[in-house]
């Protein structure tokens, strides 16, 4: 069982469910350590006080915000920061329920599992009650809470029989497309091209099956590490080719359709 990121209470009306929060993702990537190339020894990060030129331990740290006159910092402890909204650091308060399909996935950030904690049958029953009340509806509960000095908007729904929580971005954290150099009206596609493009997309359509896509990164990297270990040289990759715009959309579409049909 992994470690919980947070413990507190999920509050829905006057029903409180004591819960713990666990990440619903696992990082399986190969990670490198920082190593001294001369001694082959693994290095660690050390914090040094610039004034004393001496090591500083983690629990000696505070947060600093630049003073309004730009001269030095205002010092704040974690307790003082948490005090900006003490109730929110302990409770996820559900304020409303919304249809899940109305929420643009651009707002979703990190997924977690919410798991009941506490003594006896009470927390398990309250948790189960929420699961049962929400499971048949394609709805997400919306709430807010504070995790490590940042406030999160969250959506909670039922997945695989448990409460699945996802942290969400606030509207002002998502950039609108207004500033992008997008095509003008004049670039509107011709009907014949559009029909061909839709045909091509349909030709290449499949049902969504996440198991269909294999993560090949680790395997490839492991192979190279193994080669390097055996003393082989690894060539730096050549610059990838930069594809250019097709001069004739219709011809390119037709060629793509032929190819898709041939490989189907």
């Amino acid at each position, binding site marked *: 069982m992994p470690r919980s990121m947070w413990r507190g209470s999920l509050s829905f009306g006057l*029903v409180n469910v004591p819960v713990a929060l666990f990440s619903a993702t696992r990082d399986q990537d190969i990670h490198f350590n*920082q*190593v001294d190339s001369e001694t082959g020894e*693994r290095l660690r*990060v050390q914090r040094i006080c610039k004034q*004393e030129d001496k090591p500083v331990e983690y629990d000696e740290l505070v947060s600093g915000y630049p003073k309004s006159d730009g001269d030095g910092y205002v010092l*704040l402890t974690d307790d*003082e920061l948490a005090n900006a909204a003490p109730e929110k650091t302990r409770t996820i308060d559900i304020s409303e329920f919304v249809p899940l399909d109305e929420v643009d996935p651009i707002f979703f950030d990190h997924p977690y599992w919410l798991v009941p904690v506490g003594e006896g049958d009470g927390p398990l029953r309250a948790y189960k009650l929420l699961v049962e009340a929400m499971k048949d509806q394609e709805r997400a509960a919306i709430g807010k809470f504070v995790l490590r000095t940042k406030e999160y908007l969250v959506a909670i729904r039922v997945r695989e029989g448990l409460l699945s929580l996802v942290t969400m971005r606030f509207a002002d954290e998502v950039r609108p497309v207004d500033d992008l150099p997008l095509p003008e009206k004049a670039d509107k596609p011709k009907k014949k091209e559009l029909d061909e493009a839709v045909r091509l997309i349909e030709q290449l*359509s*499949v049902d969504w099956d996440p198991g269909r896509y294999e993560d090949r990164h680790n395997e490839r990297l492991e192979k190279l590490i193994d080669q390097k270990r055996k003393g082989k040289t690894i060539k730096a990759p050549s610059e990838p080719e930069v594809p250019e715009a097709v001069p004739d959309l219709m011809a390119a579409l037709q060629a793509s359709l032929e190819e898709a049909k041939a490989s189907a």
Partner: protein
Amino acid sequence: MTVPIKVFGALEDRQIRFRELHGKDGSEVAHVLVGSDGAQVPRERVAKGFEVAPDEYVLMTNDEIKAADAPARKAIELEDFVPADQIDPIYYDKPYHLAPQKGAEEGYALLVAALEKAGRVGIGRVVLRAREQLVSVRPVDGALRMQVMRFSGELVPAKVMDVEEPKKPPAEREIKMAATLVDSLCTEWDPDEHEDEYRERVMEVVKQKEAGEEIEIAEPEKAEASDDLMAALEASLKATKSGSGSKKKKGKK
């Protein structure tokens, strides 16, 4: 079919950033790398190492790491198209906006229109920062949006959480009441209705502290688990009815 595009980050960092300081003297703190003897090692001597056996590291340069996912073309290679509504949102990770390069406007507009008309999302691969990613490409507001997709192996299945069933499951009547409470709190999704109020309050605390005021630390109240579910549900329903769900929209100019 290729459409030359440019990639833009779709996120804006609004988090208040604090500087890590030494509490004792308010001094800035530097991060250095040290060996087991505590001696500092200069940056140019630091390499990336992969531990193949205890204390045995294979050193890799950035170019060697890049060779793992070296693409033939600098492109988002779309492999499949899938119905947009089939994708569970848990798979969506970091978003980007895509815009056409000069001369590619027509191809870009065609792809937007065709994906919209077909109701499909393109699924493909692209190498971002020396790592091959699975991505989706969908049309939104006349533009193409790319979102990194999580691989299925990255998700922790529910059974790992090992949640027990309650000995006494909630009664049918309790579930019905809870569902009624859910119904009474239903509304439409409007991202603009939710603001990060905490940011403002943190800035207030910063101002208070700068003015030399003492910050009182409130002991947070511990919420108790509801023992009597039925009573809690009844009271909640009563509260929402008397409030008649009018908490929405107010405060909006």
